[in-house]
């Protein structure tokens, strides 16, 4: 047998092991296999009846939308900052639909100007460099989510850093979802704005559909799918795509090999009550790669509620405290500057808003909260989660020193190594190319002429 396809038997909980990873880099390179290469004896073609495997087909914030959310209007994008000092009639002129391209170009020009001023550094790496107008945040008191801290905070709790809880649409008080408060007035994070509405959801869910992001879950030790006092759970990243049909519906029963990087294996426990999985709080760290960014979910005290359907699919929600910096990097960081133009936020404004609305993981020393509560919706189809052999597992973090402008030590996990960031998205390089072109255009223009600069 070809040495590249060693048969390895491992004793993982799922009882399924990867036969022959091509190498530790998790490439998807096709290997031609002849009959002689195929391992014998045959593997029993059954799935473990005590394991439920799922592939996420939808994983995005539970965004409640109501007219009262943003009475002052949507949050300002860089394009809005670019024109806010113009005379009112000029602003009105630029905001007309037929002038939208000029309006956007002014935003791009401002983005390029700021980067030029900072020597090419992304403004999102140095959000304190500019003093943009404060973020418009959600004013209403209704949001999806759950009570994470057992408090009904009215702004006076030091442990939640003075934040005010929401009430659930079903009337349940004490809902902790401050990330929604921050992002809830950004046009592209909602679906109802006429322009840009739904863009961020589409980016994120699109990354699942185009194979850039894959998240799978296993519920193990299931003796009874309706009621089981104790089950184990695992959430894993994978570099293999989730399968969708032409209608964008997830396809069931795909076999998906999880990453060999243990950093993106999040383990926990839970129970099943009347067909609903309820996890105990656990730390979730998994990768999300949309538009090429090296993003991660790092969510503390994660609790998942998942209704397990008879057909093997599942849907529910995930709540927890999103690490503040990861929440910023994951959702808002914009290496090239274009996102802040097309979407209703600027890095300086959103960075400040996140600090102000952080409500979890209170740090006694600093007197600040270091995480922000969130609520996400999950939809999943049945899948077979394939584990690499134990002896092939590794620990590494992606070196984002240059990308996010933070020392690697800040995100390092004890015992882990580092790996260089790989751009997997064509979109990202397009975006970077575009900004390079704008920078060149800006460099060649006359800085004393406000019409061209």
């Amino acid at each position, binding site marked *: 047998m070809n040495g590249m396809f060693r048969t390895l038997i491992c004793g993982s909980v799922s009882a399924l092991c990867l036969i022959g990873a091509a190498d530790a880099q998790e490439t998807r390179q*096709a290997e031609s296999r002849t*009959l002689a290469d*195929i391992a014998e004896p*045959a593997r029993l073609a*059954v799935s473990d009846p005590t394991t439920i495997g799922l592939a996420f087909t939808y994983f995005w914030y539970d965004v409640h939308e109501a007219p009262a959310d943003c009475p002052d209007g949507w949050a300002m994008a860089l394009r809005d900052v670019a024109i806010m000092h113009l005379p009112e009639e000029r602003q009105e002129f630029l905001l007309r639909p037929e002038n939208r391209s000029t309006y956007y170009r002014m935003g791009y020009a401002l983005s390029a100007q700021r980067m030029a001023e900072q020597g090419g550094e992304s403004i999102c790496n140095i959000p304190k460099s500019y003093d943009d107008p404060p973020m418009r945040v959600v004013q209403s008191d209704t949001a999806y989510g759950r009570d994470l801290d057992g408090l009904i905070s009215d702004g006076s709790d030091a442990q939640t850093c003075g934040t005010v809880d929401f009430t659930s649409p079903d009337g349940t008080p004490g809902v902790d979802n401050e990330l929604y408060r921050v992002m809830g007035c950004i046009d592209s994070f909602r679906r109802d704005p006429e322009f840009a509405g739904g863009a961020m959801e589409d980016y994120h869910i699109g990354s699942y559909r185009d194979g850039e992001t894959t998240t799978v879950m296993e519920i193990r030790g299931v003796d009874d799918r309706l009621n089981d006092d104790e089950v184990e759970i695992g959430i894993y990243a994978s570099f293999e795509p989730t399968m969708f049909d032409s209608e964008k519906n997830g396809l*069931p029963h795909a076999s998906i090999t999880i990453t060999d990087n243990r950093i993106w294996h999040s383990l926990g426990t839970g129970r099943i009550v009347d067909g609903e999985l309820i996890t105990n709080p656990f730390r979730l760290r998994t990768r999300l790669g949309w538009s090429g960014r090296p993003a991660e979910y790092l969510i503390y005290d994660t609790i998942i509620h998942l209704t397990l359907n008879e057909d093997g699919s599942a849907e529910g929600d995930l709540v927890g405290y999103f690490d503040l910096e990861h929440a910023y990097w994951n959702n808002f960081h914009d290496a090239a500057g274009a996102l802040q133009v097309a979407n209703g936020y600027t890095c300086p404004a959103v960075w400040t808003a996140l600090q102000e609305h952080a409500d979890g993981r209170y740090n006694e020393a600093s007197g600040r909260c270091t995480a922000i509560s969130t609520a996400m919706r999950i939809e999943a189809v049945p899948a077979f989660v*394939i584990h690499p052999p134990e002896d092939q597992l590794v620990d590494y973090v992606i070196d984002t020193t240059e990308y996010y402008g933070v020392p690697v030590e800040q995100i390092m996990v004890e015992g882990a190594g580092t790996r260089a960031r790989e751009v997997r998205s064509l979109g990202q390089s397009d975006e970077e190319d575009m900004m390079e072109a704008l920078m060149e255009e800006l460099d060649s223009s006359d800085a004393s002429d406000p019409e061209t600069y």
Partner: protein
Amino acid sequence: MAGIKSIALPIVGLGVIAAAVLAIPDARSLIFGGNSFEGEIPPPQMRRLTEAQYRNTIAEVFSDEITVVGRFEPEIRIDGLGAIGASQASISASGYEQYYGIAGSIADQVISADNWADYMPCSPSESAEFDRECASQIIEQYGEALFRRDLSSEDVEVWADAMHASMAQVGSFENAAGLVIEGMLSSPQFLFIIDRLEDDGRGDVRLTNHSMAARLSYFLWNSAPDEELLRAARAGELHSREGLEAQVERMIASENLRQGSRAFYDDFLDLSRFSSLEKDRLIYPAFNQAVADDAHEQLMMFLDHHLIDNEAPYPSIFTAKETFLTRSLGMIYAVPVVPSEGWELVRFPEDDIRGGLLSHAGFTALHSHPGRSSATLRGIAVRQSLLCQTVAPAPAAVNFTVVQDVDNPEFRTARARLTQHRTDAACASCHRFIDPIGLSLENFDGAGMYRIREHGEMIDTSGEVDGIAYDDLPALENILANHEAATSCVVERLQHYATGRSNTEIDSYWNVELMRGFERSDYNFRELMATIARSEQFYAVSLPEAEGGEDLQQANIPTQERNS
């Protein structure tokens, strides 16, 4: 060609192909001498190359680096086999244009500056000068391989003269060589496997060594003779038992046997239909082209695994539990597949409905409609392909409304719909014969995915076949595995596939011998292939009795033109 009393002379002219055989009356003899078997000896044949044979031949003669792009003449199936159709097929005018285009494309690749040294035995000293010696080497090398016969010095001279004459138009020796390759590939002598006869020295005729090599090679390897087989043919070894036995033994042991076995499975089970297999994406979203391709390949691998690699008894294909899966197929079978790429050998548990040939997605999806399963199509496939039984075509003006209306709440399962359909007396007799087998496969939907209910109602897979009642598919598979018709069918089909002809008198006697041997070998399919390849009957040929004497139309064509 010295000593040849009879020669098949195919002519292409305006898309018309004719075979002229100069008759020699009362010639009846066998390659090994003496009439050691009963029955009338069949006449020689011209078998049109199948697409797979064409591609394999190009890979064998040149290399698999040469791409073959083009549309081939559609397969004609006669008596359940394309192989029989190929021996009765011609080439249409438009089809010939396609072959001509393919030939040109292959020639361009072969003579390209990058490839010349790899494929050509020599190079001219000057590109603009005609080098007759080099030209002759090229013609001799490829003439023998592509025409599957030895070339006379006159043949070489004719081709060399034509090549020389073309240089004025095409400008270089290399381009002229390309014309030679293109001309050979466009010739009926290449496009048809032509039986060529010679005097056996006792007043009878026999296949030439080269024709024997071609028959043997296209049967066992579905490709042109390789260099060793051509060497044996040149040396005349195939007319001796020892020489033939040595080549059969070598070829049966070769990895190339899979090309031959797979070509047979394709023909036997009519798997060429995979190329046009379509499923409704809304009804079967998981079934895509990758699944169709894999399902086809899975059947090939499954049959090779059991019949060639493990040499398991043929009936075991109905009850086997081991097969191969890819990730795409894993989604149809709803089982995990460990390797991210390629195939995994898996074994279904003994109590699993999956495993045997009939439970493969390739079988159930192929014999279904785009949007629904079909107990009738599946039943017909089993009866006709696997049991060699005849099913009468549906009578005209049949009302299929009930069968096609799968959402009719009154008839929620295929069984209910077909039961209603059978109330039409015109349909009843055939459906009673066909449907029970197909209904036992109703646990697989139109894409081959397992289900236990249809429209909420439990699917009943019990039935009765040829007087034996059974409860479910595994029981039916056991019945089929022990059904005499199943083993006799594969023998008959392989025999017909090998010879490219329907039953003749000698085939009937030969079939009895083959069947006995098959039983003695514990239904060893590989051994059956070898037995046929060794059989005198496989090479038996006689001169046809031409009605009205010489074919005057052909006789009036100058000899050189007929040979060109």
